[in-house]
């Protein structure tokens, strides 16, 4: 563990990524304490520039504080990003593990099923799903998980295919361990590194997808998110740049931080690094 951390923390990008991500988490968690009035409260004139009294990041088209919106938007982004990735990793690992471990017909069927999800244009499927389930936090999470799990399933299956022929797995079979135990106790811990890397990258792309949905008005209407802020202010883009640029920057910085972390994990966990 210590060795892993020292390998992870040698790259400056990883450190920057972790620091930025930690800051965003703090802001997201602290938003209700810092701004108890919530993001929808009108606090002044619309489209006030950043630096106006009491409005360090300006106000939006309805006169709501951009700063408060950004802080609350972080909550939505992180929540959707992390929980949809957790769901996707859960589904993907389970199906990938079963396909890779059992092989044969089971593998064929599960992989055709996976491909079924991969050949449908993902974003179209997502929009249909969310519209069908009514736009809400829940439907966004489920929808994003449903379009992203095949990536994880592919990676997990590949790892399991390789690992199940290793001698320690055969030994476990001979010792009489159950399949469930072999899959989860013997193989999974060894298959985890690449899955962790894929997962960390997926959080970033899930945040992007959530923003796109919210921009199109398919986000949870009761919540302020970065995507919906851009969507609501796009008519004011030319007169008040901050209403769209600031949430856009927030998305960019978050996704970039997550990708730095993912790269760092890849370097630290990747087999090629171990020399």
């Amino acid at each position, binding site marked *: 563990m210590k060795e892993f951390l020292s390998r992870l923390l040698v790259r400056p990008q990883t450190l920057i990524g972790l620091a930025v991500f930690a800051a965003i988490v703090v802001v997201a968690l602290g938003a209700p304490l810092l701004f108890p009035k919530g993001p929808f409260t009108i606090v002044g004139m619309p489209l006030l520039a950043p630096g106006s009294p009491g409005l360090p990041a300006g106000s939006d088209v309805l006169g709501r504080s951009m700063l408060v919106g950004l802080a609350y938007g972080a909550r939505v982004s992180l929540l959707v990003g992390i929980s949809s990735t957790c769901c996707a990793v859960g589904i993907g690992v389970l199906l990938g593990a079963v396909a890779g471990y059992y092989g044969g017909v089971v593998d064929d069927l599960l992989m055709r099923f996976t491909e079924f999800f991969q050949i449908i244009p993902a974003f179209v499927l997502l929009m249909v799903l969310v519209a069908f389930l009514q736009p809400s936090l829940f439907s966004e999470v489920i929808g994003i998980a449903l379009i992203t799990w095949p990536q994880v399933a592919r990676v997990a299956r590949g790892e399991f295919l390789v690992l199940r022929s*290793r*001698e*320690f797995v*055969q*030994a*476990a*079979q*001979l*010792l*009489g*361990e*159950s399949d469930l*135990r072999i899959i989860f106790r*013997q193989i999974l*811990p*060894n298959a985890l590194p690449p899955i962790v890397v894929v997962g960390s990258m997926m959080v970033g792309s899930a945040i992007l997808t959530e923003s796109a949905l919210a921009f199109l008005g398919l986000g949870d209407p009761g919540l302020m998110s970065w995507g919906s802020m851009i969507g609501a202010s796009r008519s004011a883009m030319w007169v008040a740049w901050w209403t769209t640029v600031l949430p856009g920057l927030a998305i960019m910085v978050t996704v970039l931080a997550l990708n730095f972390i993912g790269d760092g994990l890849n370097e630290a966990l990747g087999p090629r690094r171990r*020399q």
Partner: protein
Amino acid sequence: MSALVRIEGLNVALPPGGDRTLAVADVNLDIGSSEIVCIVGESGSGKSVTAHAVMGLLPRALKTVSGRILFEGRDMLTQSAEDWRRTRGAGIAMVFQDPMAALNPVMAIGRQITEQIRAHRAVGEAAAMRDAAVLVARMGLEPGLLHAYPHQLSGGQRQRVMIAMALSLSPRLLIADEPTTALDVTTQAQILELIRNAQRERQMSVLFITHDFGVVSDLADRVAVMREGRIVESGTAREVLDRPQAGYTRALIAAVPRLSGSPAPLAREKPLLEVAGLSKRYRGSGGFLGLWHGRREHRALDRVSLTLQRGETLGVVGESGSGKSTLARCIIRLADPDAGEVLFDGADLAGMGRRELRAQRRRIQMVFQDPFSSLNPRHTVGEIVTAGPRAHGEGAKISLARAVEMLKLVGLEEAVLSRYPHEFSGGQRQRIGLARALMLKPDVLIADEPVSALDVTVQAQVLDLLDKVRRQMNLAMLFITHDMRVAARICHRVMVMRQGQVVEEGPTGALFAAPRNEYTGRLLAAIPGRQRLEA
């Protein structure tokens, strides 16, 4: 006699934090012209590092601290990268242990040879290809092979190609780093012959790295024995082999298993395991959807029968692809046989359902070949050793107590329980694997090449341990190996396999002394160093 290569006081540093500071310490070695010098040693002795230093191919982490390497009087360590490029290939060529990794998989063999020729000489592709064809013919390969790709060749053919490439520019020195370790005995004998002939014809020098004293006695003019980075003894092959001075050299030579002195066969009893007519075919489809080459069928096992009784060790010997591992896997049902039966204590394992099999299997356990992949790197030794009994419902406390006992039996201390596999050497890992198998108190132990990845001295210890355990627990042991010398050391009876069939079977001593089958005779004749070491 002026030396072609003179290594003077060579010191190569290991990266800090290793178990010693120098990979190679104060090595002095001369290689005369048209002389074969063997460096012998166990893994980690620095023999490969020395060879790579001469070739200027040290891994980046290793740095030469001091010393000189003179090649034809020039100090190689101070020369420029451009000089190195000119020396490599033309002056010094190298053959590696793994020819598959050393050949470019997407380039035809012929092109790979001509590429090297043309990098050093101003000749056209056609002329270079003519040279390549001559070389390939000298290696005893078909000319058509020039158009083949590396994956289409056998291991022996690949190594011949590597030697052809190495000889293509008529180097003054050929460095061979364990070139036959991955090959079967008969192929190994042919490759050694080839190197010897090429050396004689071209009057070149050879630096041959090996761990096998058998190979040394067949090949070497002079020998240097290395241990922990130092040369402990050097001299002519005759001196070192016949009158070894250093204790370590004596121990190494003594550890080479001999063909003689194998245990006498046991009195016949009712067999515990009876295999009859076991067959297994693998159907591989060549090309996309099997359309290109048609469906290929490979008979991995062809009507194999054997018996094994309590307290007996039956050796299964054969070259790679002979089906010996498939036999083990079919008996223990890691693979499903197509036909035949495996009677174990009266019940047929071959036709058993999953649940029944699970109950029976604990009585047949296995020790695997690869000490690195046979233990889960993420589990502690304690978890590994107790996994079997735990899976069969034994309490944690009892199985832990038994694990301590079992580790003692295989020569490990209680303290290892909380450690992870990567902290152990190959020999220690094999002991852990053995302890894991024995925890279920099996009646039959299948050992699939359990010592082939180990150094000779460690090999001898593990073999003795297996034999001790067999006697103590009255185990029936099926011992699979490609090394006849290893089989001779502990097997009561041996069975020789070839292409999925049993060639012959009988008491070890009698069979090795007077093989009835011509193939067995060839295998025995190919064992390196037989004449000198058996005497």
